């Protein structure tokens, strides 16, 4: 693994943390393999807790929004459990770092088209739609695929410009403004594999399942 010290974060934290120690919260809204994410954060020396009650995030410096399943149902669960306003307070008011993984990335967008049109969190302009299936490219897109990393986002420090990551998905985000895309993947069509908009980070692949490159990305997130 290539090491690099050039990690100048261009983030501005409007609410500085009380402690210099990061505290990672993994959003539990009844969807997603939370154990894998927690294991990965612990393996890189992070202090991670799975959080079911949105009232318990005040001391959380970094939130991870995982997710597996359907867009509409996930949004409904976030609303019902009170997570939407808690996530908003963390990411949009306190401007603390948030990482959306897989479905968690898609939920950051304005709307999704899985089983009908559903409103998302709406923090990043754009939509979510199904990948085009061709005879060569089966959907769901499952397995290791290479991502072309196009900017020096703090999330991608120390990674090669082309890295393999593990994907499991059928839908992909379509941002209105492509300048927030920090990594592209090619699978039948070109789609956004990683995003950054200020303190919002997202990956369509699973960093917690992407071996060394994935663990490095998570380390970078904790340094944001």
């Amino acid at each position, binding site marked *: 693994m290539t090491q690099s010290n050039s990690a100048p974060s261009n983030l501005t934290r409007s609410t500085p943390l009380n402690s210099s120690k990061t505290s990672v919260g993994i959003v539990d809204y009844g969807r997603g*393999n939370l*154990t*894998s994410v927690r*294991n*990965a954060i*612990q*393996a890189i020396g992070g202090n991670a807790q799975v959080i079911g009650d949105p009232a318990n995030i005040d001391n959380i410096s970094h939130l991870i929004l995982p997710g*597996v*399943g359907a867009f509409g149902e996930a949004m409904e669960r976030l609303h019902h459990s009170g997570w939407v306003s808690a996530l908003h307070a963390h990411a949009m008011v306190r401007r603390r770092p948030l990482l959306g993984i897989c479905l968690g990335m898609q939920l950051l967008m304005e709307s999704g088209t899985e089983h009908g049109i559903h409103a998302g969190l709406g923090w990043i302009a754009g939509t979510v739609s199904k990948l085009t299936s061709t005879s060569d*490219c*089966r959907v*769901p*897109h*499952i*397995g*290791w*695929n*290479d991502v072309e990393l196009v900017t020096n986002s703090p999330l991608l420090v120390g990674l090669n410009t082309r890295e*393999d990551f*593990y994907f*499991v998905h059928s839908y992909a985000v379509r941002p209105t403004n492509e300048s927030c895309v920090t990594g592209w993947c*090619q*699978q039948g069509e070109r789609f956004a594999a990683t995003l950054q908009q200020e303190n919002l980070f997202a990956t369509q692949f*699973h960093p*917690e*399942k*992407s*071996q*060394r490159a*994935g*663990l490095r990305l998570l380390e970078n997130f904790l340094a944001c």
Partner: protein
Amino acid sequence: MLKTRLIPVLLLKNGLLVRSEGFHTHQVIGNPVHEAERFNEWNVDELVYLDISRDNQYDSRRDDTKVASLTDPLQILERVSQTCFMPLTWGGGIRTLDDMRQRFARGADKITINSQAVETPALISEAARQFGSQAIVVSVDAKKTATGDYEVMIHGGRVQTGLSVQDWVGIAESAGAGEIFLQSLDQDGMAEGYDVDLIRLVTSRVKIPVVACSGVGRFEDYAAGVEAGASAVAAANLWHFKELADRAGKRALAKAGISVRL
């Protein structure tokens, strides 16, 4: 470009890793947690654990490793998932949605079902609805019949079903299976290469990814599985008896012109 996955399969019997031949001969070869750590260090693509225990006794002994004895396969899974940052598939003895839930909660990304899926195909659709198709792998044990067809065998290859493999994989796919894990009773442990006719039969019948297993004796054997249409190639015994099995396997695939994650 999507890479062809190369997958080590770890067979777990009563808490110990074993090698298998013909689905009946099982020799103890090591400790399950220790091996997962080794594969993680090798940076492998994915890991499949199949628990083939027939009784409920688990004993990983304090044999040649420093890993404390684990008495329960779920504890083994929990330990394995803590050191395993690649997709992890867990199978064997899974009969209910609750069995699945317990394995996902301990860090499995996918589960495989076999005998119970044949006996109750509705389990596949219910599991896919609750956990998503991507997490549900249907494992198929095939045996060649006297007429050259392939029959689905269950309960560790001991029970005939009368179902043809091509019919069964079609049913499993329509029910919502996300992947087929294909084993051959005839090739298991023989180190003579895959049964490519069997693989071709299945990959031409379904659109979901097929993981080919059983019979790999040399690294060069993997390519034939990919050429027969498999999305991923797996082996068990070979990984334990050859040094640098990941590198050498990937190199053999790359040499055959197949795109792999190096």
